[in-house]
């Protein structure tokens, strides 16, 4: 950006804009610990300016300015994703949306809430339950930090999805600012359609409010935990449970390596570390829960599962936001988040465990059953970002994990920058063409969140990326005596 543009924006927003490098440097990353030399070699991650709009009008004026001057704009709020979805790739304007936070309106009769995009999921749900006796239908496992607008822009699967589907289906209406600064109201029938913006990772427009469908705050909840000696039995049970009618609110799984990783990280838990765990959570009225829970004991028996103490089941539920505590064994984590057919979960886990054994890495997997047919497994292993070279070579293992997910019918969960090499696994060529057409229609100059979602940058194109990752894998084999060995010690 030219100095005059930076000055122009500083004048426009006063003390809610800064070009100080002390500040802007902090917007160059997200939850992923990517070595700075790598990310800054590939992209211009440092924004020229960070601005904090407080209203739709201010967002619109920013986007008008950006359109006029052809400046890249990266929207960001919690930045709780791992693929640089909210990190600049071409500098420019970083639009920090955290000022757009809070509930605008609740319609108790229709059970809907209109909410600003940077509202955190947990704070929204807490407030709805407290004041209105309502609750969100589903939320991400990052609910304490992640935002409503962020999840809409991402995949939208999480806690409660088994019962209520993807979050995208719960959005009834949204307000967005388009690339040129035009403010539009989006519904499933509007032109452009609300659906264009779901899972668009901030590339189609800036969402400035959303109306969500809600449910009555559940009267009670119940938690069950079933242990399995082998993962195939767990999968079998998960499939049966996901097919139940009525469905449980949430079903979560974790392989035995996950419990071991928690213990290795220094946490005290009575969870057995030699079994795989399936936790099943029910919410609703007492009678609804009773009806939904009834078949569980039979399913556990049929699949050789052993029910564990209700105290442990409750512990699994209360720790649902803390899966990352295993990071203490790292101190970093590397891995993948994927969406996978439920029927392939066990074979995927076996394949991942085989990979871990081969590489001497304690790879663990946990995740959620998000529909009768799909699950969302996350596979991670400890690493140490402070050990530059071995950490870099360990990145090759993430591709091996993605490849295993793909072989079992899976795909990356979220794209951003780092998963662009796998775009071919996410969309068919016709879907991709259609998305590109929409993007060109709404953002012809490509100023909104450039470098994400649609195409891999040169060095991340599948062939080059594959070559690079293979080279790192070879180097890892030749040189590393660190990451896995240290972690398994």
């Amino acid at each position, binding site marked *: 950006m030219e100095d005059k543009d930076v000055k122009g924006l500083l004048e426009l927003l006063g003390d809610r804009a800064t070009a100080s490098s002390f500040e802007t440097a902090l917007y160059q990353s997200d939850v992923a610990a990517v070595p700075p030399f790598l990310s800054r070699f590939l992209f211009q991650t440092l924004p020229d300016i960070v601005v904090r709009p407080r209203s739709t009008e201010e967002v619109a004026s920013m986007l008008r300015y950006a359109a006029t001057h052809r400046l890249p704009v990266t929207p960001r709020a919690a930045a709780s994703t791992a693929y640089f979805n909210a990190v600049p790739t071409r500098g420019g304007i970083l639009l920090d949306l955290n000022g757009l936070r809070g509930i605008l309106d609740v319609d108790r009769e229709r059970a809907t809430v209109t909410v600003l995009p940077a509202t955190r999921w947990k704070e929204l749900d807490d407030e709805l339950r407290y004041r209105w006796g309502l609750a969100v239908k589903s939320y991400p496992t990052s609910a304490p930090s992640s935002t409503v607008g962020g999840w809409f822009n991402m995949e939208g699967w999480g806690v409660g999805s088994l019962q209520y589907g993807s979050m995208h289906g719960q959005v009834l209406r949204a307000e967005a600012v388009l690339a040129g600064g035009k403010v539009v109201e989006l519904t499933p029938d509007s032109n452009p359609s609300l659906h264009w913006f779901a899972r668009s990772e901030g590339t189609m427009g800036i969402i400035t409010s959303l109306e969500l469908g809600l449910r009555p705050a559940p009267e009670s909840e119940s938690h069950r935990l079933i242990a399995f000696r082998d993962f195939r039995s767990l999968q079998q049970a998960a499939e049966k449970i996901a097919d139940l009618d009525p469905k449980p609110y949430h079903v979560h799984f974790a392989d035995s390596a996950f419990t071991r990783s928690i213990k290795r990280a*220094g*946490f005290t838990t009575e969870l057995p570390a030699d079994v795989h765990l399936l936790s099943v959570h029910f919410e609703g009225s007492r009678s609804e829960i009773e009806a939904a829970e009834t078949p569980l004991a039979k399913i556990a028996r049929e699949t050789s599962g052993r029910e564990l103490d209700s105290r442990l089941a409750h512990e699994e539920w209360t720790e649902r936001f803390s899966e990352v505590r295993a990071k203490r064994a790292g*101190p970093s984590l590397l891995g993948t988040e994927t969406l996978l057919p439920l029927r392939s979960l066990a074979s995927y886990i076996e394949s991942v465990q085989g990979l871990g054994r081969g590489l001497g890495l304690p790879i663990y997997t946990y995740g959620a059953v998000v529909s009768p047919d799909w699950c969302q497994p996350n596979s991670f292993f400890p690493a140490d970002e402070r050990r530059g070279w071995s950490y870099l070579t360990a990145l090759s293992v993430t591709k091996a994990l993605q490849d295993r997910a793909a072989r079992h019918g899976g795909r990356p969960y979220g794209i951003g920058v780092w998963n662009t090499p796998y775009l071919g696994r996410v969309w068919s060529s016709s879907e991709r063409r259609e998305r590109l057409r929409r993007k060109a229609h709404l953002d012809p100059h490509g100023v909104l969140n450039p470098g994400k979602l649609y195409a891999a940058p040169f060095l991340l194109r599948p062939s080059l990326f594959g070559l690079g990752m293979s080279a790192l894998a070879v180097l890892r084999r030749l040189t590393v005596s660190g990451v896995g060995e240290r972690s398994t010690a």
Partner: protein
Amino acid sequence: MTTSEIKRLFLTTPLGEATICARCGACNAVCCTHRELQWESTSPRGWLAILRGLAGSSGRISDFPPELVERVFNCTTCGKCGQVCPAHIDLRRLWVELREKIVDRGQGPAFVDQVKEVLEREHNVFDFPNEERAEWVEFMSDAPDHRYQKEKAEVLYYVGCVSSFSPGAQGITRSLAKVLELSGTDFTILGGEEWCCGFPLMAAGSKKEARTLIEHNKERLAALGARTVVFNCPSCYHMWKHEYGLEGVELLHHTEYLARLITQGRLNLGKIDDTITYHDPCDLGRNSGVYEAPREVLKSIPGLTVVEMLHNREEALCCGGGGDFEMLAPAMTQKIATRLVQEAIDADARRLVVACPQCKRIEMSGVEALKSNVRVTDLAELILESVRSADHTEATSGGADGPS
């Protein structure tokens, strides 16, 4: 093992913990000062990122930029960041240690030296002559002749600087002294021999300088022979509990002591017809784990309707007045307080009950800023009100001797 024990066990070094940070931003979402300042550099996650960046590959930090110093002291040390951290980082302790490192390098903000000077000179954070510590007693029409100062007593009531000197908090002190007296507790205060607990120095990154204060207070306690110390200030309580290393002495916050007195039937409580909500002070609740004792006390007051605010117990909001933050940014402290007072208003409470002199002062300023009718009362004041209500009821129902 409790979560806090796990956290204590876990803290490696500030830099080690900064690497363990998951960068998820759960801490940012609940940080009361970040909510006002909003830049990433004013957030817990931002500070950890700056630390990682400063350490680089060497793992050593030789210099703290002034921008970071300013931001690390823009923190109330309320501990909410650590409470929500999914990686279980004891962030409150980390910030205090970081302040110590900054001050050790001579890079602390100017107010740190002022705090040190004042405490060295007067042994109280208000810079008043310390012999005036017990002047609050002089405003009591019915104080005993010994003015609550005895040579020996079973219980030491450690008053603390705010409750001793701040007019906005002295009502708590007088109320608690009166309640202790009415309950028949054999207690004393130290008067001018009471020195600051050392908390302001610890919060200012100067824990080493707090040693003199700590040793003095311990000596005075030993001379008294008291086996129990009662505090009405959660920060004093927290400091004594965690930094004094006392054995064989029972340290109780007044909420705990009042709960005991009520259980023992030593207080006759009368009706208070009011709707109240209770605010968990950070250093009493989140940072010391005392949640139920004040609620037990409230439950025992006849006629009282108790409603909970949206954020309560470990999730309670900070009033904005901790960690020396008020000394640095009084206007922002008041702004933070308004969020808490608003929660009390939203809960339909007519009264906001606190258990901390600093919370009371700050929340009263929040009430003023919102032009609200909500009253702010400390639990000790409420108990005295209830005791007096009982006395009044007995007097008015006393048959021939009572007024008709």
